[in-house]
C-alpha cells in the first residue's frame, strides 16, 4: 500500500472499486457511489417529479442501502418524490419477523412511512402454513410468485406510481445466466431492462442495475447502516446458488465480468421467429399473466384444494384434472420453475 486515493490524491485509500480498479478513500468512494446512482436515475429517467415511489424493502443489505440512497438523493437533488417503504410479511417465523424489525427501524431512521402486506391477508396462507402443507421442496416457487404479486398489490393499494427494487449488478448478471441456462427467452429479453412493466399500473425500476454488490456492502459497512443478514430458514434456491457462486468466481478473476454479462444480456437480439408468450390478464384476479390464470392463482388453488403440486410440475395442470391425475404426476421427478423477475 502506501499510495494515496486515486481521486483526491490525499487520503489513505479504503477500497479498490471493482468497476474501475481504482483505489479510493472512504469519502471519494461515498461521492462516486452516490453520484453514479444519481446519474443512473437521471439518465434513464427512472422517476418524474411528484411520483409516489414504493421502495421494496426486505430489511436486507440491498434494500436498506436503497432506502438510504433514495432518501438522500431525493433531498440532495430535489427529485420531488414521495417515498415510502413497502415490505412483505411472508409469515416465516424466526426469519421475516426479525427482518421486519429492521425495516421498522429503517422507517424511523429515514423518516419515510412503512406499509407491510402479509401473505396471510392476501392469500390466506403464511409461508409457515405452506411449508407445513407441501414440505421444503418447492416452497421457494410459492414464495417467489406470491412475493412479486404481493409487492404489486401493496404498491397499488398505497397508490404508488413506481416501485424501486434493490436488485444490483451481480443479481442481474446472475439472472442473465440463469435465463440462458433455462432457455427462458422471454425473461432473457427483459431481465436487463432497468424499468419493466412501463405500460402496467406499477412500473418497476432498478436504481442499482450498475452497482456492484461489493460496493453496496462496503457502503453499508462504512456508513454503519442497519441491515439484516440471516438466510431464510427454508432452504435457498440451489440452482441460483450455483450461478451466484460462478459469478463471484468470475468477479474474483476479472471484476468487469459482471458488467460484461449485463451488456451481453442487453445486446441479445431475440430472433423474430422465437415464440414469445403473450401477455394477457388472469381471468380470476386480473393480474398480468401469459396464461389464462396467473401462477399465483394456480398455486393458490392447489393449496386450497389440497393439491399443492398444481402449478409446480412442468406439465401444465388444467382445471379438469382431478386428484388422481395429480397423484400420478407427484411420482414424476419434480422440476420446479422459479420466477424471480
Amino acid at each position, binding site marked *: *500500500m502506501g499510495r494515496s486515493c486515486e481521486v483526491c490524491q490525499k487520503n*489513505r*485509500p*479504503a*477500497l*479498490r472499486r471493482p468497476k474501475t480498479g481504482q*483505489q479510493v478513500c472512504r469519502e471519494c468512494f461515498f461521492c462516486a457511489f452516490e453520484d453514479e446512482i444519481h446519474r443512473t436515475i437521471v439518465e434513464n429517467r427512472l422517476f418524474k417529479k411528484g411520483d409516489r415511489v414504493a421502495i421494496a424493502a*426486505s430489511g*436486507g*443489505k*440491498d*434494500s436498506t442501502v436503497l432506502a438510504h440512497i433514495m432518501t438522500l438523493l431525493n433531498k440532495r437533488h430535489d427529485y420531488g418524490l414521495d417515498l415510502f417503504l413497502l415490505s412483505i410479511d411472508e409469515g416465516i417465523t424466526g426469519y421475516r419477523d426479525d*427482518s421486519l424489525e429492521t425495516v421498522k427501524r429503517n422507517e424511523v431512521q429515514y423518516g419515510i412511512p412503512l406499509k407491510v402486506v402479509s401473505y396471510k391477508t392476501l392469500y390466506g396462507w403464511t409461508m409457515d402454513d405452506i411449508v407445513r402443507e407441501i414440505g421444503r421442496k418447492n416452497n421457494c416457487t410459492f414464495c417467489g410468485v406470491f412475493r412479486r404479486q404481493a409487492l404489486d398489490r401493496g404498491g397499488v393499494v398505497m397508490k404508488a406510481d413506481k416501485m424501486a427494487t*434493490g*436488485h*444490483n449488478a*451481480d*443479481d442481474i448478471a446472475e439472472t442473465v445466466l440463469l435465463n440462458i441456462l433455462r432457455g427462458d427467452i422471454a425473461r432473457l429479453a427483459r431481465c436487463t431492462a432497468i424499468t419493466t412493466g412501463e405500460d402496467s399500473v406499477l412500473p418497476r425500476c432498478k436504481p442499482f442495475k450498475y452497482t456492484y*454488490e*461489493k460496493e*453496496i*456492502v*462496503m457502503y453499508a*459497512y*462504512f456508513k454503519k447502516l442497519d441491515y*439484516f*443478514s*440471516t*438466510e*431464510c430458514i427454508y432452504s435457498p434456491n440451489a440452482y441460483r446458488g450455483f450461478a*451466484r*457462486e460462478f459469478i*463471484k*468466481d468470475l*468477479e*474474483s478473476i476479472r471484476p468487469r465480468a459482471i458488467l460484461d454479462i449485463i451488456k451481453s444480456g442487453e445486446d441479445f437480439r431475440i430472433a423474430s421467429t422465437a415464440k414469445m408468450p403473450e401477455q394477457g390478464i388472469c381471468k380470476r384476479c386480473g393480474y398480468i399473466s401469459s396464461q389464462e390464470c396467473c401462477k399465483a392463482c394456480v398455486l393458490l388453488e392447489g393449496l386450497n384444494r389440497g393439491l399443492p403440486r398444481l402449478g409446480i410440475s412442468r406439465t401444465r395442470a388444467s382445471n379438469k384434472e382431478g386428484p388422481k391425475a395429480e397423484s400420478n404426476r407427484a411420482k414424476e421427478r419434480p422440476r420446479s420453475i422459479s420466477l424471480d423477475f
Partner: protein
Amino acid sequence: MKLTLEFGGGLELLFGSVKIHEVAVPPPEGETKVTVKHLLLWIRDNLLKERPEMFLKDKSVRPGVLVLINDCDWELCGTTEAVLEEKDTVVFISTLHGG
C-alpha cells in the same frame, strides 16, 4: 499476536452467532510473522463451528466474502499475503446472504 476478528453479513452464524472475537494467534512454527493466509487456517482450526465451505475456498475466503484489515479493503494490502500486526482488526463480511 492479539487480533480482533469481526464476522458480519451472516458469517457470524458459522461462529456460534458471535460477531466479535478477541483472539491470540501464534505465528506459524519457526516464523515471527502472521499473514492473513495463516490467520484463515487458524480460524478454520480454532474458531469455525460449522460449514467451512461457506467461509473458505482454495486457501482463501470464498468469493463474495469481503475482508477489511483495519477498515481497509484487503485487496489493497495484498490479500492473503498481507502481514498482520499486533492489535489489528480483521473484518469478514459475507455478501452472499439475502438482499
